[in-house]
């Protein structure tokens, strides 16, 4: 098929938009930790941006999207981008250069790995982050991406809907986050009630803004064409983000005051929830999808805290739960009137779709949790997951990077 310049331009721009989400995430997370761990938290995302980007072209793309092996994993035929060139692929995004589709997918892999780091901030060793990230990309992300999005992937063949990665990105990162946090244990002082005060909420708002902006590339780019479907996904994305941000703001207002941190969190939760559904549902359906996501996430975050689990930046409550609800919501609200390549959901007379979604969600929850636990154990037994107690007390900025976020006594 011939290259379409409109589609190509849109996909390349979308790749750049999604790239910007990772620095956005770095600020979003960075603002929420204590001052002594700000740089180290930002570094976790930047390291993913560099490391995963390289691993992706070396073998990650081939494992995820390469020629199918029994529906489970992609073959190694495309390693080092062998055969992935300027001509379109015959399978994926057939109107753009194969390289454009490949780099678009690279940005998804990068941010997915960066996402789970929110669970382990302020205590996980930087070297362990690098090693664990490489293992996780290979043994969690690549298989799940292949199952759901790969040509011949077993969940794809079953007809599971995941427009832009509610399952592949948000569930796999969110569920892995809680698994790794349980393995790593809480931050020093967490259970004793030591205040863990966010060092800079404006940074969180900046990060949330960049994420929201980049999310248009994430969701509308996932149309892979530059037309009506991209516009639909763009609009549903904005609606769900707004609906969830407002809902979270109202929840915080009911209990105390309309919270800035709460509004930023709500926006991200709503954006995560619409991700799997953005190109399958109508704009109006995006309102309940966003609003319900915020309520679920809010109360599960409180539940997580009550249980004394230090999944520090709530990747599970935000992305795991947002992605889960969104994937199920796709099975409820999807309509072939929006996307003829999709399916009808429960409300359009097809309850089977909801069951398929439920199956995929369940499988990926179990796989991500279990595999992350195993990989985490492996890294712990070899190089160790955690910094020493002294390094943790001093802060990871100085102990891991020999730098600090803010200048010293002399101005």
């Amino acid at each position, binding site marked *: 098929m011939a290259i379409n310049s409109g589609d190509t331009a849109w996909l390349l721009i979308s790749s750049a938009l999604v790239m910007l989400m990772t620095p956005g995430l770095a600020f979003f997370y960075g603002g929420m930790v204590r001052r002594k761990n700000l740089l180290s938290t930002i570094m976790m995302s930047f390291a993913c941006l560099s490391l995963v980007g390289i691993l992706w072209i070396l073998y990650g793309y081939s494992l995820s999207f390469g020629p199918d092996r029994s529906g489970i994993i992609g073959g190694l035929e495309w390693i080092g981008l062998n055969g992935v060139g300027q001509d379109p692929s015959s399978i994926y995004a057939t109107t753009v250069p194969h390289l454009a589709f490949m780099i678009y997918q690279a940005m998804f892999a990068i941010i997915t790995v960066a996402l789970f780091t929110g669970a382990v901030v302020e205590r996980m060793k930087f070297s362990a982050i690098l090693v664990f990230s490489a293992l996780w990309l290979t043994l969690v992300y690549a298989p799940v991406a292949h199952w759901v999005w790969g040509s011949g992937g077993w969940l794809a063949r079953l007809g599971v809907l995941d427009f832009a990665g509610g399952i592949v990105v948000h569930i796999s990162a969110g569920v892995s986050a809680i698994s790794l946090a349980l393995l790593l244990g809480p931050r020093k002082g967490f259970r004793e*009630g030591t*205040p863990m*005060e966010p060092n800079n909420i404006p940074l969180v708002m900046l990060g949330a803004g960049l994420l929201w902006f980049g999310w248009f590339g994430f969701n509308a780019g996932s149309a892979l064409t530059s037309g009506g479907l991209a516009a639909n996904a763009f609009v549903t994305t904005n609606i769900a983000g707004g609906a969830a941000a407002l809902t979270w703001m109202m929840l915080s207002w009911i209990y105390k005051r309309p919270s800035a*941190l*709460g509004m930023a*969190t709500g926006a991200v939760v709503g954006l995560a929830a619409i991700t799997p559904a953005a190109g399958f549902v109508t704009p109006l359906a995006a309102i309940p999808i966003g609003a319900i996501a915020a309520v679920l996430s*809010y109360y599960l975050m409180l539940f997580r805290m009550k249980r004394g689990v230090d999944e520090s930046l709530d990747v599970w409550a935000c992305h795991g739960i947002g992605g889960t609800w969104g994937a199920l919501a796709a099975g409820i609200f999807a309509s072939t009137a929006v996307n003829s390549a999709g399916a009808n959901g429960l409300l359009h007379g097809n309850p089977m779709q909801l069951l398929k979604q439920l199956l995929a969600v369940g499988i990926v929850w179990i796989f991500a949790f279990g595999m992350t636990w195993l990989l985490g154990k492996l890294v712990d037994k070899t190089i160790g997951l955690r910094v020493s107690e002294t390094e943790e007390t001093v802060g990871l900025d100085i102990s891991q990077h020999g730098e600090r976020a803010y200048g010293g006594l002399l101005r």
Partner: protein
Amino acid sequence: MKKIEAIIREEKLEAVRKALETESYLGMTVSEVCGRGREGGLALQWRAGEYRVEFLPKMKIEVVVLDEDLSRVLLAITTNARTGERGDGKIFVTSVEDAIRIRTGDSGVDAI
């Protein structure tokens, strides 16, 4: 010579500075400090739920005065820093052995 350390509300700094100026004390050292008194801490919002901050921001003014000015200066600070609510702060007074003006080498009361 006496050193006055006055820990006051942030918003009272300007009023106290002016009052000290009226008493002819132009020089002082000011720091942002955190502390707590009987008012206790403050509950702030986390993404969901709250966390407590036990130390509240205050301003600390340090000024060294002549013995004979002490009671006037203390009165000026207390009247200008007071709201009558909990959290108005505290003043500590200590004796100072010597003082030196670095530029000239003047010492004792001449250095104040």
